[in-house]
């Protein structure tokens, strides 16, 4: 009786069984268990239109073209969603879209200093390459820590001369830990002491931002001195002028031991490079030790923080939320799932693309967005989350739906600064969308939005004005183009009535297109 034997094995060796189980199944099983426990009815499976728009935005940062929409909606293949996912994961736009998300996490919309802004394109190129080549996450983090690959140094330039800020950023972004409280006093709720904070800063205190060239040729590299320590003078409240503090040895986060390092030779003299010269590599490099530790099995934080971040990217909130505040006493909303995500990521050599593929192939990711919860980031993931488009996604999507870029035409300068001002930060800092009045005025009246819509050869408005199709057909095509679904009967009626107005057809169609790209449905992912 073979089936029985299998059941027997399952009982006694659950780990073996779990390892063979695809992560997407674990996701669905664990979320379902929580819904049953919490007595929640999840939303049904999303419609093809909703899924199509969601997956395009989440993976490649833009919406599909009318042709892509028609092809997908008309496809009867039951495996078409999985196939689309594979196609988008292999799309060159995937790397750019993922880069943009991480780049914002690293720098914010307005970076710490001017130099960081100047060299950000080089960093973005470096980061996009990591995604394009699907370099294992732990490996590119290691390279980021080493800052030797051109472009990667920009991350450090933003914290120039501020080892404490580096410690705050590295712990928050890559280790999911909020250490900054321990900068001035021992953390009130956590085990972190000031020694932990300055111990981490000790790895960065010897880093030096080196410059060469000037103007557009100005280049940065990150050198490392052989000497220098963080000086610790106790609780910020008890500071007295003139107190220098005592040197603190570097210490890996969570470790109880200081880093072992060879003593500096007595007669060692730190070289002082001239302008445009670089520091020699130190005989003992704290930076190299730290980079090695980041990507090693001894670092328990890296995989957890990354798994949680990627989960939140697609599902709206972290299994531990917020994602950059994983505490010793934090319990994940779905502990077994969190464990499976983290273990899976490690087993698959930190392959982020694998993790994303599993998440978006789960039934849970593919739920419809209308469910019982009113929350933007439903706590139990019982429905698809509603999120506003990023600045990059808005502009990219506007280009696609209005057919702004015509073959053989030089792409006009868009004036990114404007989009940054009005769409740069749509969230209130706690994850909730807050469309500002300035944003609406920008949508309503600015030439920056208008020029996408205005009639030009080959674009959507031109097609609407010149096509001989009956108006019903045109309305349907408008909805399929902008919102990737046919209109409901009420919508079709409303828009058709509007189009029968007394202004000339070009004006009427222009206003309808304006209204469609201005809908909440376009501004958000659904």
């Amino acid at each position, binding site marked *: 009786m073979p089936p029985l034997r299998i059941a027997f094995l399952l009982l006694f060796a659950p780990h073996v069984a779990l390892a063979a189980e695809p992560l997407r199944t674990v996701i669905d099983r664990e979320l379902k268990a929580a819904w049953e426990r919490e007595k929640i009815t999840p939303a049904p499976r999303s419609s093809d239109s909703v899924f199509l728009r969601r997956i395009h935005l989440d993976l490649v940062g833009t919406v599909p073209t009318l042709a892509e929409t028609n092809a997908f909606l008309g496809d009867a293949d039951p495996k078409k969603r999985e196939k689309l996912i594979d196609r988008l994961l292999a799309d060159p736009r995937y790397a750019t879209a993922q880069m943009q998300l991480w780049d914002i996490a690293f720098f914010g919309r307005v970076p710490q200093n001017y130099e960081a802004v100047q060299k950000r394109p080089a960093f973005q190129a470096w980061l996009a390459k990591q995604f394009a080549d699907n370099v294992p996450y732990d490996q590119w983090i290691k390279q980021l820590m080493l800052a030797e690959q051109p472009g990667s140094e920009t991350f450090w330039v933003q914290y120039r001369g501020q080892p404490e800020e580096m410690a705050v950023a590295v712990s928050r972004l890559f280790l999911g830990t909020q250490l900054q409280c321990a900068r001035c006093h021992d953390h009130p709720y956590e085990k972190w002491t000031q020694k932990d904070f300055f111990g981490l800063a000790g790895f960065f205190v010897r880093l030096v931002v080196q410059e060469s060239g000037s103007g557009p040729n100005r280049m940065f590299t990150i050198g490392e001195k052989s000497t220098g320590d963080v000086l610790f003078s106790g609780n910020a409240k008890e500071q007295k002028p003139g107190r220098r503090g005592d040197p603190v040895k570097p210490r890996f986060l969570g470790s109880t031991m200081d880093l072992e390092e060879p003593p500096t030779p007595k007669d060692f003299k730190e070289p002082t490079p001239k302008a445009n010269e670089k520091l020699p590599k130190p005989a003992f490099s704290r930076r190299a030790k730290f980079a090695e530790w980041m990507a090693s099995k001894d670092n328990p934080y890296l995989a957890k923080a990354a798994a949680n971040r990627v989960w939140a990217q697609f599902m709206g909130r972290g299994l531990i939320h917020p994602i950059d505040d994983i505490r010793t006493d934090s319990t994940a909303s779905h502990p077994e799932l969190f464990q499976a995500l983290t273990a899976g990521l490690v087993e698959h050599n930190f392959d982020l693309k694998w993790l994303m593929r599993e998440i978006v192939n789960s039934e849970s990711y593919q739920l419809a967005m209308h469910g019982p919860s009113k929350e933007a980031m439903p706590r139990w993931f019982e429905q698809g989350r509603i999120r506003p488009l990023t600045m990059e996604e808005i502009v990219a999507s506007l280009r696609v739906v209005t057919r702004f870029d015509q073959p053989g035409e030089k792409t006009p300068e868009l004036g990114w600064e404007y989009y940054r001002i009005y769409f740069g930060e749509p969230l209130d800092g706690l994850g909730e*969308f807050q*469309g500002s009045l300035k944003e609406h005025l920008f949508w309503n009246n600015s030439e920056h939005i*208008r020029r996408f819509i205005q009639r030009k050869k080959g674009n959507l408005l031109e097609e609407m004005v010149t096509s001989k199709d009956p108006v019903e057909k045109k309305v349907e095509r408008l909805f399929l183009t902008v919102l990737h679904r046919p209109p409901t009967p009420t919508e079709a009626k*409303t828009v058709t009535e509007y189009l029968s107005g007394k202004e000339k057809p070009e004006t009427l169609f222009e206003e309808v297109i304006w*209204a469609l790209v201005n809908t909440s449905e376009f501004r958000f992912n659904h």
Partner: protein
Amino acid sequence: MFTRRELLSRTGTGLPLLALAALEAAAARAAAANPLAPKVAHFPAKAKHVIHLFMNGGPSTFVQPALEYHGQQPRPPGQDRTRSRRAVQVAVQVPQVQAVRHRSVRDLPRDRQTDRRHLRDPLDAHGHPESRAGPAHDLRQRKAIRPSMEKPWLQYGLGTENQNLPGFVVLCPGKPVVGPALWSNSFLPGVFQGCHIQNLDPKRVIEHIQNRYIGATTQREQLDLLNELNKLHLNARNGDDQLDARIQSLEMAFRMQTEATEAFDVSREPVKVRESYGKGYFADACLSARRLVERGVRMVQVFYGSGQPWDDHGDLEKGHRAKAKDSDKAIAALLKDLKAKGLLDETLVLWGGEFGRTPTSEGASGRDHNNHGFCVWLAGGGVKGGMTYGQSDEFGFAAMENKVHVHDLHATILHLMGIDHEKLTYRYSGRDFRLTDVYGTVVKDIIR
């Protein structure tokens, strides 16, 4: 946003007061999906609006007879900024700000004025006392890393009364030295950012306020179409709060297009009133400030000029005289006008710069920044009139008696607006932030 349970479990062992305050704030926010909706104050407010006349740069604010004597003497003891500079006699004879004050006073509301000497601020760089980077924060980068002063914070705490106009308006003809960071919301939600108005021409007053492509009627029809589509979308999504809020603010933006144009149109004022303010950007800005306050705007900040005009490192006497003369008429007219309209009781007018100037000279005829002691004055909404508060040393260098730190000034302004500065918190980066950091005492003696 934190749920009630999360909040309690996070802070239950720690700071019950903060938790309570945060809960209250969360409840207030939850009550209205619109973050700008008016909110309930902590206690009855004495003032509803603030007009901040901001003399960017650092105006000199004192007369000290002692200097006339000491000016001839070697450097006074204990003045670290005076090293290598010689005390100067001329400067002390120029009580420009006194002139502003006295003339305004003579004109009318002396009983409504409080001279607040002497403030103290730990930082001495442009933009800092204004933007209030906290003492524990980054001094090297000289940047405003916290939400600027009371303005975004006021709006965050109280919401805005007039839903058709921005709650916090900055009138500045250009850019101050450190730029828009001065009215930045920083970590507060973006909606609380100050609305910068550079050009007072009503048609260009707010960016994108007018549509060059279609008329108002067409735009209304267009918006109605959009609203219909959005409502269908909203209903299909269970009335999601974010979506609903967006529909509301779209409407608000449209209404603002009409109302803002009207509010900034000073040509609608009687000729007599316009003449009383005088001519120029500052005069028009003062008059606009009154019109905005009249329409329920919470906070108006009027910059004296672009850059840092009140920063006379050289030729102070001439420079200060000219600026005092130029601004005096408009300020006096504003106070009178507010009084005549019955708005002075509910409008706190704050006059001040970024810091004061040293009693000692810089070069031959200028004076340097002084953050150790400087003055502001307050009038109207809830403050006692006709008094001075605090005293400096005999040189006018550092605050000595009844020192008022900028944190204390903030605490007092919030208090007048009905906000307990210790309860107005915003959770960011793992902790609750306050405008006044962990400092600030309300200066009760100056409150009516």
